[in-house]
């Protein structure tokens, strides 16, 4: 049963303690509480500050290259058969993904707060690159934590970060992926809390991060909504976005939440198939728990230990998800589904061939689901897919699968 959402309801979420219904909150050790409360207070002030917002908008336009186009994928639509598929081209942003919307915003916050040192965690490396990029521009010292496994999988992005002047710290603990990188970034923050700003890459983590990252990413949905009305003369019938931590998805969905006619689908990484247990789909197959400072759906074992995840896409390879998604799932506003590695790979190749657009493997999950969905919808209906990033970073992975040394 879906709850009907109103603007008034949305304004109350998260509540003063960072809760989205039963989810979210601030579950961190005491050392970080003061910094989080200061960040919350300052962000709530700057959120209403025209000077801050103008600086953010200016950077999005002139540095990121926004607005990103909303593109009708005519050949994909024709070949798929069914609803029109439109792509929100976040892959055309500077640095090649939606991640930069958020790093621009948080780096601005860091400078307003007078912090000179920035840390970040990264999975696929897109957030690390986007953070290193804005740090280079603003002259901030930048440290990026990245699971040792991901450092191997995404060596090109590691090199990009180094060229941008960031120090990349491979994380050898735990499963050596994104969740461990986030643990290590938290440890760094606890140790350097006075001079360091932690730029979290997704809508997870302790309050106020899920709020502020969502606000920075919501530009995607605001543009997509206006562009749909202008270019198609109506609102889309469905939105589709991939969900790892969930920042590109919430960015697209949020400005449409009160538009009742717009259906929304968050696509998780089904890995080798949800039934195999080798996946990264907490909303599809997990249960609520507490990790990385927030209560949300998690992949965990019966003893509450966090499970290892699997996805071909490093950016989706995370056992948790932003708390607002957990809430949207429980109230029934968004449907969360999953797509396997194989389906995502097929979509990667297919979109490349029929549209000349090479999606990130993360975004390929959304494309794969949109193709399924389109077939069940009428020709006069419209789907907007968040093409959250470009696929250059994944060429190595694809080439390996093809047995080619790239």
């Amino acid at each position, binding site marked *: 049963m879906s709850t009907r959402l109103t603007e008034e309801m949305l304004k109350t979420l998260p509540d003063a*303690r960072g809760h989205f219904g039963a989810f979210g*909150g*601030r*579950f*961190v*050790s*005491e*050392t*970080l*509480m*003061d*910094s989080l409360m200061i960040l919350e207070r300052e962000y709530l002030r700057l959120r209403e500050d025209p000077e801050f917002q103008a600086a953010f908008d200016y950077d999005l336009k002139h540095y990121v290259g926004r607005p990103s186009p909303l593109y009708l994928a005519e050949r994909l639509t024709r070949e798929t058969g069914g609803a029109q598929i439109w792509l929100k081209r976040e892959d055309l942003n500077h640095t090649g993904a939606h991640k930069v919307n958020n790093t621009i915003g948080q780096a601005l916050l860091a400078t307003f707060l007078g912090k000179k040192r920035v840390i970040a965690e990264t999975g696929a490396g897109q957030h690390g690159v986007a953070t290193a990029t804005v740090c280079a521009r603003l002259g901030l010292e930048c440290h990026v934590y990245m699971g040792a496994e991901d450092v191997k999988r995404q060596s090109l992005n590691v090199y990009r970060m180094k060229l941008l002047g960031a120090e990349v710290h491979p994380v050898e*603990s*735990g499963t050596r992926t994104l*969740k*461990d990188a986030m*643990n290590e970034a*938290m*440890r760094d923050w*606890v*140790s*350097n*809390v*006075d001079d360091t700003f932690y730029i979290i890459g997704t809508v997870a983590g302790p309050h106020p991060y899920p709020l502020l990252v969502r606000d920075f990413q919501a530009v995607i949905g605001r543009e997509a909504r206006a562009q749909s009305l202008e270019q198609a003369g109506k609102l889309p019938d469905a939105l589709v976005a991939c969900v790892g931590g969930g920042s590109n998805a919430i960015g697209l969905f949020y400005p449409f939440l009160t538009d009742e006619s717009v259906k929304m689908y968050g696509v998780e990484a089904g890995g080798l198939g949800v039934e195999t247990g080798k996946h990264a789909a907490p909303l599809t197959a997990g249960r609520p*728990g*507490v*990790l*990385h*400072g927030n209560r949300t759906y*998690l992949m*965990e074992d*019966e*003893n*509450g*230990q*966090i499970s290892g995840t699997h996805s071909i896409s490093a950016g989706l390879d995370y056992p948790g998800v932003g708390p607002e998604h957990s809430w949207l799932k429980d109230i029934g506003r968004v449907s969360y589904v999953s797509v396997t590695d194989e389906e995502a790979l097929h979509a990667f190749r297919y979109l490349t061939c029929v549209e000349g657009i090479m999606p990130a493997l993360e975004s390929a999950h959304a494309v794969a689901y949109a193709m399924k969905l389109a077939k069940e919808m009428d020709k006069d209906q419209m789907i907007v897919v968040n093409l959250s990033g470009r696929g250059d970073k994944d060429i190595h992975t694809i080439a390996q699968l093809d047995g080619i040394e790239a």
Partner: protein
Amino acid sequence: MSRIDRVMTSLKEQGRKALIPYITAGDPSPDQTVELMHTLVGAGADIIELGVPFSDPMADGPVIQLACERALAHGTSLRQVIGMVREFRSKNADTPVVLMGYLNPMEAMGCEAFAEAAAEAGVDGVLTVDLPPEEADDVAPLFTARNLDAIFLLAPTTTDERIRAIAGHSSGYVYYVSFKGVTGAARINVEEVAQKVDHIHHLTALPVAVGFGIRDAETAAAVGRVSDGVIVGSVLVNTIADNQADPARLKTALHELLQPMREALDNLSG
């Protein structure tokens, strides 16, 4: 009066300081934990903090992370940890045991089931690193109803307003984290700790135990001089790691490490 209150009160009357060692349950293996707890008591422990292993110990440094990994490699679960306390209690009715860990394993077991089983087994207090009092509304009454002390952390960054509020939610003692960092780092500044603990004493009547950075008799004495107790963790866990292949040697090594700290603390009152 809880077992922790009794110990703290008695120490205070004697002018002595609490020695509170930490080890991770299940490290190096679950069958050794109870023995090691008795070893700690034999070396002078007043209270034992028993770590509940977690896959993602965000507030801990590499030493305790690895201890968690060793314990989890043996499948050590929260239910098993509670079983270890029950076994320890069959031979020791006096030494309080505080379970220290992260929230998720407790929630996975069910907070009420956990509180019930822990109290029944003879656990005295619970310190959940990633559960600040603001989020503890549902859990706290479960502990209170069963006489489990809720122990919360205070940090160098904690404001006066929060110190008062946190102390209001605490019982047994408060755990002052001596520096901004993770467990096992060596950054303790005794003068700063002294000032802050003195300040905390003005804001709450609860005993203040200090942890993080205490590694030998010298640091134990220095911190003991300005607080009500010292918590010793990573250096013990390191000793466990170094001697994991030789259980007999491990017990001797733990004793040899902890006992001088006991002496140094007791010399303060002499």
